[in-house]
């Protein structure tokens, strides 16, 4: 380089040190900024999106899913909006996902951030009902059907009616003579499309979609549904084999120490 002729070792090292120090400061600020953007756990991704920790490492922010979406449901996050800039998301209350049969958004993704194989049936044909963009959650305090009024709008608009949203009939104790038809979500079938949230008649939707990792709990392995044959089978598969030999030797030999 032309500027380097007169450079001795000392000024070279000093320059390197200066660069490294400035980089350390810049890296902390920059990393904090990027991590802060990443911490937007409530954004809903398109069908077939990778898990929340892999998606930001794979999405190249090209917007081809957005261009492919026929309903303009998907939007790229603009600066100032939650979520990393330039990554696709949707807001069901504004525009839900209408569950296109051919899933054009996922098919358009060039990077693998939207994985078509996760929304396919066994034959490899697209099956949008396997999408798990999120899960609908109901706020029963503000659900007028739970009050006892006759409203089943979310149930009727659900593309997986009677699977993803069920109506449960209970007795209305307040009047003593009416039924309450209360919607309930089955997360096993809910795609998170948000048609229910979009249609909900109250001012701020009482049914709304959240990312599954936010809205759903996890039971763990220790509980088994004894009335479910498949679940019951786990008892035999996962059962801990008793240690060989005399149990007394096991206990006296410190067999419990590592637990």
């Amino acid at each position, binding site marked *: 380089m032309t500027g380097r002729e007169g450079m001795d070792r000392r000024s070279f090292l000093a320059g390197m040190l200066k660069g490294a120090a400035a980089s350390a400061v810049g890296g902390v600020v920059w990393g904090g900024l990027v991590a802060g953007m990443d911490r937007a756990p409530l954004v809903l991704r398109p069908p077939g999106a990778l898990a929340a920790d892999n998606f930001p490492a794979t999405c*190249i922010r090209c917007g081809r899913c957005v261009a492919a979406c026929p309903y303009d449901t998907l939007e790229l996050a603009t600066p100032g909006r939650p979520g990393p800039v330039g990554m696709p998301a949707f807001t069901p209350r504004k525009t839900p996902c209408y569950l296109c049969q051919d899933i054009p958004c996922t098919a358009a*993704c*060039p990077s693998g951030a939207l994985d078509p194989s996760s929304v396919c049936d066994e034959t490899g044909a697209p099956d949008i009902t396997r999408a798990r963009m999120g899960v609908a959650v109901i706020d029963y305090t503000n659900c007028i059907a739970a009050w006892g009024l006759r409203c089943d709008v979310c149930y009727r608009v659900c593309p997986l009616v009677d699977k993803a949203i069920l109506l449960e009939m209970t007795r209305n104790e307040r009047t003593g003579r009416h039924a309450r038809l209360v919607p309930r979500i089955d997360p096993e079938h809910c795609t998170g499309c948000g048609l229910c949230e979009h249609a909900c008649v109250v001012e701020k939707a009482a049914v709304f979609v959240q990312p599954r990792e936010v809205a759903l709990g996890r039971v763990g392995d220790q509980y088994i549904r004894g009335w479910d044959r498949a679940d019951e089978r786990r008892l035999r598969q996962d059962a801990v084999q008793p240690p060989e030999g005399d149990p007394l030797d096991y206990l006296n030999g410190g067999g419990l120490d590592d637990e």
Partner: protein
Amino acid sequence: MMSRLLRHRYLIARRILQAGILVLLAGGNLYGWPVLVGDLSHSRLLGTVPFSDPFAVAQLLVAGGVLAGDVLLGAVLVLAFYALVGGRTFCAWVCPLNAVTDLANRLGTGRRGTHPRTGRAVRYWVLGLALVVSAVAGTAAFEAVSPIGMLHRGVIFGMGAGWAAVAAVFLFDLAVMHNGFCGRLCPLGAFYALIGRFGLLRVRHDHTVCTHCLECLRVCPENQILQQVGRVSGTINRGVCTNCGRCIEVCDDDALGFRIRGRALSERTGG
């Protein structure tokens, strides 16, 4: 009039190309034009040829992304193209932020407070840092904050608050540091400077006809690389040259022109 056009022929061509690409991409998103769909990070030409930003792909790879073949092939194509053409041709001919910083630098041309050599290496540190932060944060770090991305995505998909980042770059170049962003900070430019070091399309200079008017030094955004102009004849072989052609169009002595590297100097090519 004609001479004015001639004195800006590359500039006009660059603006047409920069704007044309954005128009095609915006049409692809808004109206479904099939010519070029995507944005400058990744796009697809006529539904077949993929183009990817190789620097964005590099960031995703160090972030741990398992990328599909389309994006990788696109990155290889773009990488090969700019390595062959040379220099930071992307910066002058494709990057939309170039129009913003060119304007800021023209308006701020009276201020020459910064020595042309000062801080030119910062961008390489930023480049390295972008990769480190990408690896730690698990996402493409420069893409997350890039004013270039905010500008082209803003035009194609909607601006949001992105204009603020573009305005910040404009003000930085105008009032804080001449050629500050493109010439000193931008890691994408640094990336292409490294890629384009051995490219073929170069600016030749001929000292036998040069009258030392220094017009080329006045317009060049990286004029620290023009030290040999007027002293010897040869080509500017540095990677940071953006091949913008401003020096060529302002030269009244026919001492500068584009030339394929490696051809003998006596063969004068046009321009």
